[in-house]
């Protein structure tokens, strides 16, 4: 009975996210169709002879009406036929396949580093709220959320690569053949990415736990004489786990913005750099595919956050 309520809620969430993804695909398609003039002419640039324009228009289905082109594109997206790059003719699917694992590795390592640090900061700040420590954490997290990623990255390169010569300034994946090599390659990019994520996550964790710590049942536990550690670990944390899991997933979705900057600065061969390069060459099929992939990833994280909130809400469990 209660499982059915939860399943229905989760099912509704998944359905809503799929609809949202469909709406986004329409936006991405419209966005890239807004280009004034004939796309084929713009792509060909100087070499736009009438014959070449006609051939490319046919190859890109430009002669078909826009709704049909949207459906063709959507069908290709679902079946994995993403078309070919306009710049070098490579298959978009294989370009993405060659870059995606690198970006996932970078994102995964960042999550591995930032989640424990952020949880530790957020929980301690919540427990010692109102103290000098809490205030320092607050100031530092606000500061690191409001500082651009490229400042963090350039400062990190300046200190660790240029001045101290500890780490390389560019992330050359070939050097990551041992554990030490892996560390040297990823230290700076992961540090930069973690900076903003940790701040975001620590703030949200603190807010979630403070909410619980100020509820009357926690006050009751304090009044009956439970030790502070027991109050936090046994009484407060279990009820804050849902909001905290929600905070983790939501903060990780901010990775998307950061990874675009970090991959560019460190010359890291990931998906985000592929997309930035595609934007500067106006390689539409590649941009569309990357955009959809990023949005899907983002929605997945938000979905996980929602599900965590649903699963951990006892009021839903016992309805």
């Amino acid at each position: 009975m209660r499982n059915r309520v939860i399943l229905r809620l989760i099912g509704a969430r998944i359905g809503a996210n799929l609809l949202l993804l469909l709406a986004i695909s329409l936006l991405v398609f419209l966005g890239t169709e807004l280009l004034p003039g004939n796309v084929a002419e713009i792509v060909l640039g100087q070499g736009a002879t009438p014959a070449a324009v006609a051939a490319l228009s046919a190859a890109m289905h430009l002669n078909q009406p826009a709704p049909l082109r949207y459906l063709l594109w959507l069908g290709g997206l679902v079946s994995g036929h993403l078309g070919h790059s306009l710049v070098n003719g490579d298959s978009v699917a294989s370009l993405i396949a060659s870059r995606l694992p690198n970006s996932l590795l970078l994102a995964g390592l960042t999550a591995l580093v930032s989640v424990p640090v952020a949880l530790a900061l957020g929980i301690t700040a919540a427990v010692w709220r109102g103290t000098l420590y809490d205030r320092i954490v607050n100031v530092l997290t606000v500061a690191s959320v409001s500082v651009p990623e490229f400042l963090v990255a350039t400062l990190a390169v300046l200190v660790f690569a240029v001045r101290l010569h500890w780490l390389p300034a560019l992330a050359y994946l070939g050097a990551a053949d041992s554990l030490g090599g892996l560390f040297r390659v990823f230290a700076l990019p992961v540090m930069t990415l973690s900076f903003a994520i940790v701040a975001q996550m620590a703030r949200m964790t603190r807010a979630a736990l403070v909410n619980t710590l100020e509820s009357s049942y926690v006050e009751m536990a304090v009044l009956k004489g439970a030790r502070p550690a027991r109050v936090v670990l046994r009484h407060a944390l279990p009820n804050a786990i849902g909001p905290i899991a929600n905070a983790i997933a939501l903060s990780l979705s901010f990775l998307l913005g950061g990874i675009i900057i970090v991959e560019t600065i460190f010359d890291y061969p990931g998906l985000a750099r592929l997309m930035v390069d595609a934007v500067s060459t106006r390689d539409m099929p590649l941009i569309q595919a990357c955009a959809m992939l990023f949005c899907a990833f983002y929605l997945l994280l938000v979905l996980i956050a929602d599900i965590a909130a649903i699963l951990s809400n006892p009021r839903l469990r016992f309805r």
Partner: protein
Amino acid sequence: MSEAAPALHRRLRRRGRNAGAGLVGAAIVGLWMFAALAAPLLAPHGEAAIVSNTVFGPMSGRFPLGTDYLGRDVLSLILYGARYTIGLALAATALAAGSGVVLGSLAAASGGTLDAVLSRAMDTLISLPGLMFALVMVAALGSSVPVLIATAAVIYTPGAFRIARSLAVDINAMDFVVVARARGEKTHTIMFEEILPNMVLPVLTDFGLRFVFIVLLLSSLSFLGLGIQPPAADWGSLVRENIQGLGYGAPAVIMPAVAIATLTIGVNLLIDGFAGGRRREFADGH
């Protein structure tokens, strides 16, 4: 309830508002605004003038923040760059906050289908990762100033809409609005005369936060080479142009980025000083 309650309240109030920080923030923001307005008067050298034979020169009396990759004065470039960084972000923030507030209070005041349609549309927009959406827009329309302003405004309208709508829904349920409705006032009269004047302070706070996000978004775009195009340069473009100087520890790379940081942290301090930090949790990220 307990003895500690008043003390706790006092502590919370102290934590929320911080007049000292607010003054520091106001001073920083005011200085940058002044710098942007008076750049031609303040700048020691011309915007495009190559004034030194040394590229990536260190800080010196003649060039307080060093020289850039062409031998131009970095301080002058930053002062001129402030016009783009602050000007564009202000325009985009005004557009985003303005349309967010108008649409949000319209949705709350009229309710029904219009509210549902607007809210769903904004939910869709807010689920697009910002920088990604900006990349798609720039790819499609090029990176002219109007496109950049409109893109940033579109990305940050849904957040403003949500806050304005939830404020307006609260106000909408208050007695004086119910009375106005009973008097037979029109929706737009209720919106502009009853609801809007009562949400000025929270909306201003939100305006500040949104400004920070937009500054970061636009300078990230410029940093990627997809924002303001040369010869014009905002602070993000200055970092990008001089990135080669990082190896020499040139101030030309670091200083424009530091300028962005002082501006955004200044705005944050200003907000903490005059409105308290509570609104922030809710607006983070969007």
